[in-house]
């Protein structure tokens, strides 16, 4: 797959990604009605916030050479749990923390199954996808659970600070955290090493399993946060809000230049990937294409964009 691995090429590649990304944006700005506006930018960032947040968690898992398909249903489930906890009268901060912890725990379980039982992560997390989408539907017997307490809805989604909407702030926060962990801290070196060559990493005294487990914990927590944001967005926990997110997320990460076989990737790339997909979808909708036509063009653009930047 990734035969060209020199940093030089990579830098170029990333640059190209950004160039294409800009080109497409400018195109829409010109042809799509009222696209070029501050409001639009905000709107796109909001639409892509969910995918961005999860993508950042996913980046760690994919770099470490694994994959996490459970994020979508973990998000749905987390939304339900938050709603139920608040419905049960917990203070919202506590509910949020508990939900986040649950997400982390789910991630840890994924990681343990993958590393200790040596089950391919694709299967473990596919199983978990099934388990938690089922669980989300079962807890309330498919009924959505309203979140009436508006404080948390505002903090997580509807509010804004310095005219910038809450979801954008959350994305920013997660980006910074992810950037620190991956590109600044020791942990990042470990993840990259493990993904690059697990055997060599363990020969160098790196605890491969622990590193992977932490990667899964990160993606589980990110999924939980995203799920809470989704719930806040529709002021209700809905058992199928997160369904199918995993594909968008993985696409974003890969478009961002992360190798599906592990060992290389960047936080910024993943976020840009997410926003890129968002812009395409948004732009095409604004231009008035129906969902069906939109899908065709979207698929084509993605292939083209990446094909160009692999040359």
């Amino acid at each position, binding site marked *: 797959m990734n035969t060209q691995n020199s940093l030089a090429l990579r830098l170029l590649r990333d640059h190209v990604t950004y160039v294409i990304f800009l080109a497409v944006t400018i195109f829409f700005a010109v042809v799509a009605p009222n696209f070029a506006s501050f409001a639009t930018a905000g709107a796109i960032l909001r639409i892509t916030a969910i995918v961005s947040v999860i993508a950042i968690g996913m980046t760690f898992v994919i770099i470490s050479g694994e994959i996490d398909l459970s994020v979508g249903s973990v998000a749905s489930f987390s939304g339900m749990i938050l709603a139920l906890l608040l419905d049960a009268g917990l203070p919202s901060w506590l509910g949020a923390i508990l939900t986040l912890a649950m997400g982390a725990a789910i991630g840890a379980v994924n990681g343990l199954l993958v590393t200790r039982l040596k089950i391919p992560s694709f299967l473990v997390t596919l199983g978990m996808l099934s388990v938690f989408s089922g669980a989300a539907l079962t807890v309330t017997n498919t*009924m959505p659970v309203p979140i009436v307490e508006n404080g948390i809805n505002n903090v997580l989604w509807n509010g804004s600070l310095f005219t910038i909407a809450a979801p954008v702030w959350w994305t920013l926060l997660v980006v910074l955290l992810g950037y620190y962990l991956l590109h600044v801290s020791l942990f990042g070196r470990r993840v990259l090493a493990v993904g690059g060559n697990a055997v060599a990493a363990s020969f160098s005294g790196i605890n491969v399993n622990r590193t992977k487990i932490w990667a899964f914990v990160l993606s589980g927590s990110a999924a939980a946060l995203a799920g809470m944001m989704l719930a806040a967005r529709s002021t209700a926990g809905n058992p199928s809000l997160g369904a199918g997110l995993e594909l968008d997320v993985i696409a974003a990460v890969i478009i961002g230049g992360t190798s599906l076989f592990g060992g290389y990737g960047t936080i910024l790339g993943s976020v840009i990937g997410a926003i890129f997909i968002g812009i395409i979808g*948004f732009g095409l909708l604004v231009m008035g294409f129906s969902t069906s036509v939109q899908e065709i063009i979207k698929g084509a653009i993605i292939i083209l964009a990446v094909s160009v930047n692999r040359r």
Partner: protein
Amino acid sequence: DNYSWPDNIPPAAKELMTPLPLTPTGQIVPGYPNGAPAASPDVLTFTPDQIDKLKAGHFTAGIVMHTMAAGWPLLQVQGITQTLKGFGIKVVAVTDAKFNPGTQISDLEEMIARKPSVIFSIPIDPKSESAAYKQASAAGIKLVFLDNVPVNMAPGKDYVSVTASDNEKNAYYAAKELAESMGGKGEVGIVTLVYDYYYSVAVRKVGALRAFKEYPGIKLDGIGTIASPDAAYSVATSMLTAHPKIQGIFAAWDTPAEQVVAAAKTLGRKINVTTNDIAPDSALFVARGEFYAVGSQRPFDQGVAEAKSAATALLDEKVPPYIEVPTLRVKKLNLLSALQSVTHQPPPQNVIAACAGQCF
């Protein structure tokens, strides 16, 4: 203003609570080119010994749904299950195809192999699933349809009957209310399902368009299509961005409508939203004034009617081909009464709270 719910509600609310009249020929039913004659569920009655006979039959039922991601299907299932319990008929399983006809065919095949006495189902694609449903009736299983009937299947022969509301009229009402709320002029949009083959939703588009046409001042800016309810958020966001002057959106049912409201909220846009169907969760949106008006089916009662027609068929009695459950007009004013009659349960506290005493 000393009205209080439920005992003493304002006349306006009372007026709203009178259901829209039956349409003589409502739903599309195969073999009835211009609509099948609509029968009221009240025609289905049972004598005590008929009920004993049913109980003695040890019948079983399976429910094959299109989706469970909304209040409507859940209330349908509750209506069916609770009524069947009264007849001593056990529901063996409920399947959810997540709007995927391929999945639903597999669900159906599995259900057929399970050999229940009757299958309740709402076909996602009446065209491409008809073969699978034919297998069911061929296997001697009685079929009762919700909303949609597969193509070239004959009522009374291939299947028992279909229970539905007049979706076209229901949407027409909601769209008309939207236009009225805007003083009959301004720009509007529609958000509906992308698959036109799912006709009980497709006809809502027809109804909405009919309503909007009656107002020369109303300009339709676009029809946003979704493959699943959660997609409504981005569809609505982009629709509102592309058309800064949109003041109202009609969404084909409540779950996507909730996402439309969320989108408008995050864009800081004040628009009116009307839709079809309410459930405890979407009722909150009415209470908060985020849905201006809702033309709501009564899925629980529909479930009851379906269960009754199944029971009747199991007694080898004749069932009318098309049973229509008239729809309700729901506004903040009559929300509590409407919600109760839709769900057959007292309205949840959070709805009552959100109403702040303005709903009855």
